[in-house]
């Protein structure tokens, strides 16, 4: 029987916290709910949840990779979820490089989007581009 633990649904606020299988593969310690900061102790071995999530205290050792609140909206921001590894900020601007055009000047989806910018899984401006 597989004891899955990829999604930790917070007992306090019902936020779904996604615990990526890769960093959590052999993790043992505290994580937290991205919305309400409730601490949970979990123990994984080889990708399977051995114990938890148990309500705990103290600091989170590893943050969820992604989270959605009750309404399905993504919970993001510093200290809420773990940023995607290695997508480091530019040392001069403090921001990741955002581009809207390729080297030869044509539209490119290289900038952050919001839910309303999407049609299905595609950026709206790319969809519109292909309509014309």
């Amino acid at each position, binding site marked *: 029987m*597989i004891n*899955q*633990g*990829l*999604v930790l649904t917070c007992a306090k606020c019902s936020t*779904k916290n*996604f615990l*990526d*299988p*890769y960093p959590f593969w052999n993790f043992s310690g505290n994580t937290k709910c991205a919305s309400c900061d409730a601490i949970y102790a979990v123990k994984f071995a*080889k*990708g*399977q949840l051995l114990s938890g999530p148990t309500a705990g205290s103290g600091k989170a050792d590893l943050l969820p*990779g*992604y989270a*959605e609140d009750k309404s399905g909206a*993504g919970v*993001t921001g510093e200290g809420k979820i773990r940023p*995607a*590894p*290695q*997508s*480091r*900020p*530019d*040392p001069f601007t403090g921001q*990741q*490089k*955002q*581009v809207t*055009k*390729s*080297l*030869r000047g*044509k*539209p*490119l*989806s*290289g*900038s*952050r*989007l*919001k*839910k309303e*910018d*999407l049609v*299905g*899984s*595609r*950026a709206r401006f*790319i969809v519109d*581009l*292909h309509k014309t």
Partner: protein
Amino acid sequence: MATTPDFETYCQQLFDYKSASGKPEALKGYRVLSCTQYILGPSCASYLAELGAEVIKIEAPRRGEPMRHTTPFNEPLLYPLSRWVPEAGTGLGFFGANPNEEFVSLDFHRPEARQAMLELAAKSDVMVQNYRPGTFDRWGIGYQHFSKVNPRLIYQWLGGFGGWGPGRVRASYDILGQAMGGAFGITGEAADRGGTPAKHTIWLADYWGGMMAAVTILAALYWRDTVSGEGTFIEYSQVHGVTRMLESALPLYGRYGIRRERWGNWDTELSVHGIIQCGKSSYPGSPNPQEAEVGYILVTAHTDEDFKKLCDVIGRKDLAATYAKHDDRVKAENQSILYPALETWAKDKTKEDVATLLDKAGINNQPVWNAKEVSENPHWKMRGATQWIDDPSFGDLHHQGSAFKLSDTPPRIKWAFKPVGADNEKVYGRLLGWSKSKLAKMEEAEVI
């Protein structure tokens, strides 16, 4: 005898990559499930996708596989990562090993997911996965489970160390494979020039391993479709794949007990046949610090005749006389005299200056090119080795073209990749008959 076009015209007409879309695809009709991550497994599936197989990549919901979260330094990402996470992007590390695939999300741990996997396997020809050994068997989706629902399935597992043996349960990476397989014993600087091993930053062991696995899958498909009618379980060890490339190192050791050593950018078997430094930048005055660096060029003049010409070009006829015989030139101590002499000559030249002089003398050479120089070269542009694609998800992308060239069934790059779960509706609806409400329910239940 009927008139035929000359070979160049003939090849150009047959292999023009821009007309590929009007031709059939060699592997169309084969369906491949790809539960792969990083490069080793994904590249295997992507070679099949380039050749026309329908490849369905299955990733963890929301954030997908870890290679999406790697990107060189602070370079731009492609957005969205998924429709659920539009503000995050996929890193450029994901490029090159995932073209032409359909992307669905599934949490393998869930019982409902296992059922979906069994149903997908029943309707597929090939399954590729590169999780740690035994993981998928523990989750009830290994070959032993799939072969019961589809005895014709070809199941390819790739891992670092093989599926059995005491050293199997470790994580492997390309660099680990190169280290353990013996490659770093050979690649890198010679002992008297620092002795440092050098890794191939382009994940050579992963891309090579993916290719080995793809060839094995084609062999298994041939056997199934022409002989046995049965599926096959295939195991590939990344480390073994590196050892397979060691050429003379093992026979040399077996015969004399000698370890083949690192010899840098020179060659142990031919001389002159190596890379030299040229003292000047090809882009003088460029504000781009990357372009201020000096250049390098490969020089190959190992025959007696070419070596004499080379010595004439660099004004060292004395070297031509002293090292007239290849047996003398190839000796380690003599290479240590010849290459510095070449670099002394090239000190006030760019790599292009050196190439021009060597071309004029009929000596084979090649400046060492960077991505910009490869991208702008007309030969490789014409052949489609580098190409711009109008990607339906991400827009204008510069991309490497397929290296396979088939006259009647050419490969093609249709798109670079898609966001996580972009094809959930299409794949689960078409293949498993899931209704809109079932899709919504599975999403709500966190299965997809």
